């Protein structure tokens, strides 16, 4: 590194000590930030989870009662199920994004226009996007049901009003808003694959599909892995679209996610202790699921 070869001469040690001081000074802000806004709240949250507290009156210790309540609450299971259901969007998004990336991975005129068109939904604020989808998914006057009527001659579903259709609505919206981002990742991955693999396969007489299946797909596995891990973590934490599009959790609580449930308990009913318990459960769940994914990844993710 930068100070190599300078460590033998004697007068330099004073200089080195001074340099070390600068190093610690420079890394201090993120470390202090981590202690104040990361570690301390994390530990405090664990303590809160064993208490009952509405902020106004003084807290009382309740032991593990919050966790017992959580495992007995039907709404918690519903929120958990809804969150898991939304994960269907991850593989769907990967398939669409990969298709788009494969199509774009060739010299095309106007490629940057295409890329922009698919990417704009990704950068759009989720609140504005949720409002416009709420309008598009309107049962009577929404443009989506109008299209369904024109194309198939049937009345479309009551997207946000029918408990069975709320989650598919979120998945549909998530696809629209997410495929552009994943596509860019796949595109970068595709451009990194050496053409020699394909040339060798062509010599062996491999067709388009065979090349895709045995070269492209496996070589993109680090990206599949990244997209799945980030997608799972992101889905576990989805909140904003539910807040806008599913008032009070939607019909029969069909649109509430875990974070939405935590938010309601904490900031609607002011049950800070109980909400902390659920938040901790969520944190542990995310950690375990991610850990399993990393363990499992050694079997299928290609490393070079």
């Amino acid at each position, binding site marked *: *590194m930068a100070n190599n070869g300078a460590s033998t001469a004697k007068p330099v040690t004073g200089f080195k000590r001074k*340099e*070390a001081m*600068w*190093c610690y000074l*420079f*890394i201090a*802000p*993120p*470390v202090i*930030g*981590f202690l*104040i*806004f*990361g570690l*301390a*709240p*994390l530990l*405090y949250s664990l303590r809160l989870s064993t208490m009952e507290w509405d*902020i106004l009156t003084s807290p009382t210790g309740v032991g593990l009662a919050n966790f017992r309540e959580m495992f007995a609450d039907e709404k918690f299971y519903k929120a958990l199920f809804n969150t898991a259901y939304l994960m269907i969007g991850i593989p769907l998004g990967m398939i669409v994004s990969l298709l788009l990336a494969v*199509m774009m991975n060739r010299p*095309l005129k106007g490629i940057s*226009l*295409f890329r*922009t068109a*698919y*990417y*704009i939904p990704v*950068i*759009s*604020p*989720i*609140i*504005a*996007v949720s*409002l*416009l*989808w709420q*309008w598009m998914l309107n049962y009577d*006057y929404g*443009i989506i049901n*109008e299209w369904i009527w*024109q194309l198939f001659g049937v009345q479309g579903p009551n997207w946000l009003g029918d408990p069975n259709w709320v989650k598919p609505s979120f998945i549909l919206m998530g696809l*629209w808003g997410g495929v552009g*981002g994943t596509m*860019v*990742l796949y595109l*970068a*991955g595709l451009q990194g694959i050496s053409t020699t693999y394909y040339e060798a396969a062509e010599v062996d007489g491999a067709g388009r599909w065979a090349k895709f299946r045995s070269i492209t797909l496996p070589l993109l596995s680090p*990206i599949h892995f990244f997209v799945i891990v*980030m997608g799972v973590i992101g889905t576990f*934490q989805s909140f904003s679209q539910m*807040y806008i599009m599913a008032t009070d959790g939607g019909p029969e609580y069909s649109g509430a996610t875990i*974070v939405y449930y*935590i938010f309601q308990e*904490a900031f609607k009913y002011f049950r*800070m202790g109980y909400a902390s318990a659920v938040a901790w459960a*969520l*944190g542990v769940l*995310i950690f375990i699921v991610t850990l399993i994914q990393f363990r499992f990844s050694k079997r299928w993710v290609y490393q070079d």
Partner: protein
Amino acid sequence: MMTKQDRIVRGIVYALLTAGSFLMLAPFVWTVSTSLKTQQHVFDVPPQWIPKPATLDNYVDVWSKAPLAYGFLNSATIVVFVLGIGLFTAAMAAYTFAKYEFRFKESIFMALLGTMMIPYSVVMIPQYIGFSEIGWVDTLLPLIVPGLFGHIVTVFFFRQFMQGAIPSDLIDAAKIDGCGYFRTFVTVGLPIAKPAIAAQAALGFMGIWNDFLGPLIYLHTPERQTIQVLIASMQSNYISTSNYPSMMAASIVALVPVILVFFFAQRYFIESMAITGIKG
């Protein structure tokens, strides 16, 4: 030397990508169209893509009913402070992690990376309690101050970039010339890291501007809310629930700054997306 088959494939690809682009952009066109309609015509069957008559009244309406100017100002205030100071502190830390050796370097870095695993919903409640203890609720401070310490994802991104981009010889040369640590960082490190900083500034702007859960929890007085929180409370506080033209006008107002920034900084977005994706 395109074969006939290649040409057919290319034609199909063009057709599919064009159709897809229309699907991606149609919601925006529909939003603009709705926002220009009068309340009487918004429920016309079949729906009209080109509003007749077209009016800008809905924009005037939302702008006068909700304090949107304050919303912009508040969102912009958070962006300026968090990016102005936060990116600098992140660059400082990343520079040190990338280019210097010191005790416990690896363990400190790993501990910091570990924080990326902590979901916001876990720290959200204790942070809220802490900030309400010191009277910061309903101010922008809880949204600004934590960002000043340098976001760990940004530190990681900068470090990856600086490791390869800043030649160690250049740092040594500066040292021999008697250039101090801080000056070496400012004159050697920062200029080289410019593209990475620009990329993170673009991404950071989006993240802060589009952030919702944090601002929703902390900001209660309308004049103190960010643009996203104001837009989200549109239906319940400012306009009637079925007033879709005004709602769409509000959405467009929230969308325009982001899309403008995106067009100016498009390159950085797509590059940094790809870089974080592969190296992350």
